């Protein structure tokens, strides 16, 4: 990296060989505080969690001994585990698409150069600043079957009432809608920032060629945004896989387990069922899934950019 032009050599090379030890010391010295927290609150728990998954550990203190992979065997035969994993994947699929598309539409609209930018940004992004509990209170109230605003609107235009959070066929979609409202502003900002970075010359050249706004969007904006889109989709998938808060607060996983995500199942086996070892095993199965998806994404994006 040191294409030494006129500039002096880098500080490191100025030093005598004896200062090598000093560099090592100061390097690890600067890293030490982070490393302490990193080792104690991330590396240790992730390793210890794996150990726990091989034991029958429970909050009641029974059976701390190693039981091999029995927890994993049990989990793989556990219909509730598969169902919750399926719910998580289902949510991920049906939430990622609108969370990316709506964000793109919002950013594209603003990028046309609407007046009062701050007003749009505020209204699209503000929900992202709310805690999940606030969002859940808002939406539980709006979804209320008898007193809710949404059913009031539906009956007003002659449609039947919907039991939003109480109908197993609808509940997950209700959660997707709430989640869309809550977090789309984040993706919107990322898209907006990326759109601003597209050089204006591209558009000027295109409009001299007589390309209209639509043509420009599809032949300049979208292609230029491809790397951003890939990143947003990846981040969104990983975020959606961690779904817990809204579901736990709005439906508690119901009705009949139809919305219970895998993180809630981990939480419940651990803290309601007191089975820490079993719960740790399910955590690791979930972790394995995330690693597999991340690696797949990595390979796909690598191939694209190669």
């Amino acid at each position: 990296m040191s294409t030494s032009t006129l500039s002096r050599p880098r500080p490191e090379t100025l030093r005598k060989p004896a200062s090598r030890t000093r560099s090592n010391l100061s390097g690890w010295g600067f890293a030490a505080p982070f490393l302490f927290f990193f080792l104690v609150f991330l590396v240790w728990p992730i390793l210890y969690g794996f150990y726990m998954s091989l034991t029958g550990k429970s909050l009641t203190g029974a059976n701390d001994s190693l039981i091999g992979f029995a927890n994993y065997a049990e989990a793989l035969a556990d219909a509730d585990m598969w169902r919750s994993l399926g719910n998580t994947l289902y949510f991920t699929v049906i939430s990622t698409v609108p969370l990316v598309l709506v964000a793109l539409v919002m950013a594209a609209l603003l990028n046309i150069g609407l007046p009062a930018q701050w007003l749009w940004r505020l209204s699209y992004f503000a929900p992202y600043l709310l805690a999940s509990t606030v969002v859940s209170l808002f939406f539980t109230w709006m979804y209320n079957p008898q007193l809710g605003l949404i059913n009031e609107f539906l009956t007003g235009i002659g449609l039947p009432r919907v039991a939003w959070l109480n109908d197993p066929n609808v509940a997950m979609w209700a959660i997707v809608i709430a989640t869309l409202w809550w977090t789309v502003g984040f993706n919107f900002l990322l898209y907006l920032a990326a759109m601003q970075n597209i050089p204006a010359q591209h558009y000027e050249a295109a409009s001299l060629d007589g390309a209209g706004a639509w043509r420009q969007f599809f032949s300049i904006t979208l292609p230029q945004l491809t790397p951003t889109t890939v990143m947003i989709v990846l981040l969104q998938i990983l975020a959606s896989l961690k779904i817990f808060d809204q579901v736990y607060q709005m439906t508690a996983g119901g009705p009949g387990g139809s919305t219970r995500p895998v993180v809630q199942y981990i939480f419940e086996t651990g803290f309601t069922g007191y089975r820490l070892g079993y719960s740790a095993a399910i955590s690791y199965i979930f972790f394995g899934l995330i690693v597999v998806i991340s690696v797949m994404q990595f390979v796909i994006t690598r191939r694209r950019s190669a």
Partner: protein
Amino acid sequence: MATPTLTRPASHATTADSLTIRQPRKKLTVGRIAAIAVAAFIAVLWLIPFAWATATAFKTETDAAAPDVTWLPPSGFTPEAFVKVFQDGNIPLWTWNSLYTSAAITAITLVISALVAYALSRIDFRGKKVLMTVIIASIIIPPPVLIIPLFYQMLALNLIDTSWAIILPQVIHPAMVFVLKKFFDQIPRELEEAAVMDGASRLRIFTQIILPLSRPILAAVAIFVFIGAWNNFLWPFIATNDGNLLTLPVGLQTIKSAYGIQYAQNMASALLAALPLIVVFLFFQRQIIKGVATTGLAGT
């Protein structure tokens, strides 16, 4: 596609602030009017939950629970629900708990991340590559996977039901280390060389040269971490049962069962909980948006 433009009007250059849009000097065409209409439609949809919560919070409980769903209640608007929530609720306490835990998390994260990022960016030390790889790889670990062992660890350390249990596990942000390192990499080394010749220590160079030049990125990271900590639910929910230590999001979860069908009070509580960050956002909109946009892609 780039048919070379003969004259390139320089007037169109984008402003320095990448988030201000090319300002519209364009006329109102049909297309633009349609765009404004669609944008406004979405904005209204996005504001309705706030508006409805506000309308409900200012109703009497009787009106809020009346089967006749209406924006304008028969008994008029009243701040009674807010007064009630403030009097017998714990919202001020929860807000304070959220504030100091989030502030502590942000402060610790900034200090330890900036230090290690500086080492990774500037110091040649043995094992640096390995350290870098391990930190990057750890970005993949989803926090929910850690809750079981972390809870057990906190029990063992006797930290459950203390604020430390909330704070300590939330200070590790590998992605933010990476964001800071990338920023430090771009600071010209020449700026430090004079100081090195004068015999300044690493720590002095870091605090007096690097940090002052890094204010924008430090602010961005601080904003990102603070919002995350302020709104975090799962871990604080697990780490404390002590009613005096609950953070705002966790405390709010308890009122649902406590207030039951007191809809006006539910909405008043939710709005009070939402208020601090929304107010901060109104004042620092530009910085927050920039901060989220710069750190966002490095991600969660």
